[in-house]
């Protein structure tokens, strides 16, 4: 028996030992389960990009290390 023939035979045997799934239909609505998961595991904040966080950090650092700019900031607001 050649390697190729053995492989073909093996594939046949595999299909008999591990038959394809016939009924893969979902029997119930999973939305309630989904809602529970969303409530149990709140999502981290994703709407703010890293760039916005970096800008906010820079601004906070500037205010902390150079408090003199605060009146100037208020003047321009």
């Amino acid at each position, binding site marked *: *028996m050649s390697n190729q023939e*053995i*492989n073909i035979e*093996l*594939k046949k*045997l*595999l*299909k*008999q*030992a*591990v*038959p*394809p*799934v*016939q*009924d*893969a*239909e*979902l*029997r*119930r*609505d*999973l*939305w309630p*389960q*989904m809602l529970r*998961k*969303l409530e149990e*595991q709140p*999502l*981290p904040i*994703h*709407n703010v990009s890293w760039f916005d966080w970096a800008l906010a950090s820079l601004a906070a650092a500037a205010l902390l290390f150079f408090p003199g700019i605060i009146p100037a900031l208020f003047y321009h607001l």
Partner: protein
Amino acid sequence: MELRERFAAGDLEAFEVLFRQHQKEVYAWIVRIVRDTGIAEDLTVETFWRIYKHRAQFKPDGNFRAWARRIGTNAALDHLRHARKETPLPENLPCAPTPDGAVSRETRGLINRAFHELPAKYRLVATLALVEEESYAGIAEAAGISESLVKVRVFRAVRMLRKKLNSLRGEVFAK
């Protein structure tokens, strides 16, 4: 605003609509990989949780179905990696009947055992390509790998199965 744009912006109602539209399809794909209805349900929910978590990465003009299938495949693969190696085929899963007397119970058991001992990434492609007869292109898209890599993994999976079977029962496939 269009449904997918609303979803990408974090609208929960839009997500619910997409969930209800795609849950059956995602479940059907996952159950064919993990071969257990309960685990497939949990992984479907896990898939959509990942989808919602990474919604900002979704392009509203992109293919939601393909994106969901890829995330579902990754969730199923993670499960295969962490699940016990020798998981028996669940009794509650409706499968195609096997021809009587075609393969002995013992041989089926050995093949099943060798199959469940395959590393997860090989078991994934072997299940989809050899058992479920999915196209290589479809598997490649779902797994996020190239078609040629799918072919390589199927080839290696068959070779590993042969070796495992030889070690389990030398006389069956010995040359």
